[in-house]
């Protein structure tokens, strides 16, 4: 590719043709504010609408948007001419003139890109005022709050939901001043095909899309002294929570996090990892079972609730394929309430609260699914995100960075390295292979690292020889990639035996409840690397070698994939393909009645 030479604020730079001014400016460390633009090459997300107009710079005769303008040979770019500064300021003033400016009580306070730009540009007054485009905030779902009043129409969410996730819940609707990002006939999010993957949240620059705030519920639970509050933490949380406290992305903060949780007041601080190991035992058994029968293949992993929503909505005739295993969050809840409570600490499940800390907003929804529990008692009572935990720690005035490290409680806090890698795409598959291999071949697996299925690639595949049988496996992340695989499966063209699906591109490390990465996927990569580091530093790296798990089976569950396991650890799925098919109430029968009278 040919190189183009230009100057930006007097600094010479050469970049490949087709580069945008914004990117070229980064090379010479010139910062140009931007709001709508978002490129994440790792996951093929390109939001190039050039619509916010806060990145205007002077080039040649007039102003151009840096994010949408190709560099040209000999171009002279000035990012700080009075004209450019004024234009940017005015544009931000305009955005603010149609914005609630509720920063102090906004979920996004402190991590809002609009707020930051307003501060950086030195906005001290908003000269324009007038009508606001408003619509009621959508609190309908368990996972996502959609507050269109705070939306700046960057359309990042729309691109994410349509192009990357291919779910298509969101679209620009109406036009002109009334334009908003909306759903089909403005249906509540809870009544749409939304999978609650939360990826729209993770790209939204403002507080227009946020998670449902469950923090008050957690404080409330902690306040009820008659209840036993048990907390579990998902693997991806421990390598991301530190970011909220100034630590490097990927920094392993397990010990400090556990200490913080105790300081907050949780009685038992447990690890979802324990349940991840348990999941592997169940899922590997189920796989071996299906492989032997040669039926219901490929087996599809079921630990990601957004993915489960996706398959229920889009492939209702393939619901025989996902593993019937509950997700680790739910398995944990079930074991906590049905084993740990009654059998270990002599507590009735009714007197227990199981709280989960997840990188995920779909987990909030999952926790509310009525079939995931025994009777009235749900397996998990409250789920909060990594971000919410960070807020609680701050709220409680805990200095996370300087805490002494502590360990999880036993036994539901014990896990192997196989569980840690659940948080990165390919991890579940790798963990399952470690166990399935040893079980089928009855020999020890020397090299436990299946590097073919690691990394940010959206679809990764490998063929593994297990006792003479070639097992074709695939790990895929993002729902768009899942759709590709599923279309093949549906058409009968798939060669796979096992497919791992994670809804978030990159896996839970990039979950919708994680600290905001603001489009920098290096952050996500570092988190994943953190998880692999934990794994490789652990003694035990195979789920079926977890002594606590083995004890659990021995004392309580019996056989993996056995009867008790089925009752407590497995679930079933529903056809959700007709979310919008409303059967309207029949009015003619009423009319007929009326006329008969």
């Amino acid at each position, binding site marked *: 590719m040919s190189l183009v030479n230009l100057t930006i604020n007097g600094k010479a730079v050469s970049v490949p043709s087709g580069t945008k001014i914004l990117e070229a400016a980064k090379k010479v460390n010139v910062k140009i504010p931007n709001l709508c633009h978002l490129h994440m090459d790792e996951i093929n997300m390109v939001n*190039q*609408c*050039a*619509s*916010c*107009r*806060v990145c*205007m710079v002077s080039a040649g005769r*007039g*102003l151009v*948007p840096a994010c*949408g*303008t*190709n560099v040209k040979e000999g171009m002279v770019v000035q990012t700080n001419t009075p*004209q450019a500064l*004024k*234009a940017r300021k*005015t*544009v931000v003033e*305009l*955005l603010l*003139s*149609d914005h609630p400016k509720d920063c102090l009580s906004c979920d996004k306070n402190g991590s809002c890109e609009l707020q930051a730009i307003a501060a950086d540009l030195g906005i001290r007054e908003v*000269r*324009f*005022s*007038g*009508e606001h485009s408003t619509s009621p905030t959508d609190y309908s779902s368990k996972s996502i709050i959609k507050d269109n009043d705070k939306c*700046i*129409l960057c359309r990042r969410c729309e691109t994410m939901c349509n192009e990357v996730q291919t779910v298509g819940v969101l679209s*620009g609707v*109406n*036009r*002109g*001043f*009334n*334009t908003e990002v909306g759903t089909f006939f403005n249906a509540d999010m809870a009544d749409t095909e939304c999978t609650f993957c939360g990826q729209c949240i993770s790209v939204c620059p403002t507080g227009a899309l946020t998670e449902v705030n469950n923090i008050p519920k957690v404080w409330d639970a902690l306040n009820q002294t008659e209840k036993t509050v048990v907390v579990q933490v998902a693997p991806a949380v421990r390598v991301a929570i530190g970011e909220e406290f100034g630590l490097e992305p990927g920094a392993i903060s397990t010990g400090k996090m556990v200490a913080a949780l105790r300081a907050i007041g949780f009685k038992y601080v447990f690890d979802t990892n324990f349940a991840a190991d348990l999941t592997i035992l169940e899922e590997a058994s189920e796989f071996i079972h299906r492989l032997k029968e040669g039926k219901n293949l490929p087996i599809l992993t079921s630990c990601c609730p957004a993915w489960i929503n996706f398959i229920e909505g889009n492939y209702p005739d393939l619901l025989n394929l996902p593993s019937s295993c509950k997700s680790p969050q739910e398995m944990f809840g079930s074991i906590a309430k049905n084993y740990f409570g009654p059998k270990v600490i002599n507590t009735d499940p009714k007197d227990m609260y199981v709280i989960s800390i997840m990188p995920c907003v779909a987990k909030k929804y999952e926790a509310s699914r009525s079939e995931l529990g025994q009777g009235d008692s749900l397996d998990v009572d409250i789920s909060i995100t990594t971000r919410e935990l960070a807020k609680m720690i701050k709220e409680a005035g805990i200095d996370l960075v300087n805490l002494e490290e502590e360990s999880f409680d036993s036994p539901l806090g014990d896990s192997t390295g196989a569980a840690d890698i659940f948080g990165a795409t390919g991890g579940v598959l790798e963990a399952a292979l470690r166990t399935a291999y040893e079980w089928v071949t009855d020999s020890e697996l020397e090299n436990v690292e299946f590097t073919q299925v690691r990394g940010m690639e959206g679809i990764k595949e490998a063929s593994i020889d297990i006792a003479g049988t070639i097992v074709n496996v695939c790990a895929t992340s993002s729902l768009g990639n899942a759709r590709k695989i599923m279309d093949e499966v549906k058409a009968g063209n798939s060669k796979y035996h096992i497919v791992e699906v994670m809804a978030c591109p990159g896996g839970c490390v990039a979950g919708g409840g994680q600290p905001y990465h603001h489009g920098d996927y290096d952050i996500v990569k570092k988190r994943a690397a953190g998880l692999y580091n934990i794994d490789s530093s652990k003694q035990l790296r195979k789920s079926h070698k977890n002594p606590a798990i083995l004890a659990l089976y021995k004392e309580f569950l019996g056989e993996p994939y056995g009867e008790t396991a089925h009752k407590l650890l497995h679930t079933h799925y529903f056809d959700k393909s007709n979310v919008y098919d409303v059967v309207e109430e029949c009015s003619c029968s009423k009319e007929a009645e009326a006329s008969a009278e």
Partner: protein
Amino acid sequence: MNKIVSFDNLKKLASELKPALELREHFTKENLVKRDILVCGGTGCSSSDSMQIIENLKSEIKKAGLEDHAEVQLTGCFGFCAKGPIVKVYPDNVFYVQVKPEDAEEIVQEHILNHRVVERLLFEEPALDNKKVERHDEMSFYKKQSRVALRNCGHINPENIDEYIGNDGYLALGKCISEMSPKDVISEVKASGLRGRGGAGFPTGVKWESTSQTPPCQKYVVCNADEGDPGAFMDRSVLEGDPHSVLEAMAICGYAIGSDTGYIYIRAEYPLAIERLKVAIAQAQESGVLGNNILGTDFNFNIELKYGAGAFVCGEGTALMHSIEGKRGEPRMKTYSSSKRGLWQSPTCLNNVETFANIPAILNKGASWFNSYGTEDSPGTKVFALGGKVNNVGLVEVPMGTTLREIVYEIGGGIPDNREFKAVQTGGPSGGCISAKNLDTPIDFKSLSSIGSMMGSGGMLVLDDSDCMVNIAKFFLEFTVEESCGKCTPCRIGNKRLLELLTKICDGKGCEQDLVDLKDLATTIKTTSLCGLGKCAPNPVLSTLEYFYDEYEAHVKEKKCPAGKCQSLLDYVITDACKGCTKCSKVCPVGCITGKPKEKHVIDSSKCLKCGACMSNCKFNAIIKK
């Protein structure tokens, strides 16, 4: 209809068909034995029942047994819609105005049978002291006009391809595909200097060339017939009156750039134009001048209609393409040009209807003939929809370089009711206002933009002293705010704020700071909006601010609307009709009405709240707003 299988075949047919049209071109004693009666079937005239006129004329002719002596033809808009319905009788070339269906009998009896002109239906030319004139070339409305794009409108029957062919139709296409290389065609168009008539004035030949230079692949020719400017109907008239010229030009363009597919993106609100296009496409296909193996060559070209759905912004090229693709009509950044990646990501050449309508004439008569009209900067002619406060409202086509004064006062016949000229607004919602001081500006792309207006698509609105310029700016902004696609911040929010400021000013709530903010905001919107709609939306504001600042000042400082248009700025005044009943002074909340019983009362307007209570309580209608 037989398929025309070669260029020679076409030429022969054309020469056979020509005599039928001769009637309309030459008047001789000999050809007076038969008359052609042309009735306007444009939207204006057909909405005043011109179709019924055709019916009645036909039946009267039949009744009188004059079938061999007269034939009735439907035709396109003559441009003089204000005086429609228009009926023109050839070969003696008599121009009847405001004809009613019941006039058919008299026309047939008097004109056809007795060779006597129906005086009562003639136009009274104001420039000649309202003398009745027979021929259109005696009318000042037509004197300064030169018809290139509109050459066939009001001249041929748009629903009959033979008439088009008889008037040199499809000869240009035949010549191109049989005798010229695509390069030759492009050089000829380039040499003509034709600039796009859709608004931006981009050189057409250059556009064709750059589309032709992309590697061979599926390419598209698109005709922009979205014409959404409120108050403009040039393109519609061309399509209604001469659809084949556009089809022919699109095929020529297809040949030049290497495309076999054309789309016409047309407003769904133009039913007549759509109908005529459908008829024309069917006839052209049947005749072998459209479709596969045109005129026996291996050149194929097919045209499909695509309908807009009520969004002005879809006239913008990239939005238009999104709309054809079935998406929301939001424009995109022009990071790459449509001639490289346009419709369906394929090279696409987009031109306006009027631009296309010029093409066959250019290729038939040559580039130098074409640029003998107009100026160096802007060769050729331009069609305008002249409207507002002028005597002769209608469609006019003049050589570029004609001055505004000539258009308003000569062609337009000046301002009605002896009012005073105030401004001309050109370019519709994207354009600006031109004040009396610039009336002698020649109309071409460069001159118009140098005085803060623009050619736009050709709306030309004349305003008199009863029009408030602030109110006019507000009117246009209301339009752009309603039509903004909502994609980018400056246009979505900025234009809304501009409108709110203008509304505030018109409501008498403005202050001087508002004028500063208005200008500042307008300038920023202009420089930061994503597409032409947003960029040009502030033009009406900026140009009125420049030329009519005093009117703005009057609104904010004295809270007065000099033109008396802004309702909230009017004063309540008691007229001589007052009987002194004292009712009003009793209801006035601030007690600013004084007067003795049975005597005329007076309002102290410095205290008046403009609540209107007095007015609605006066039984004698003695209180008015002024």
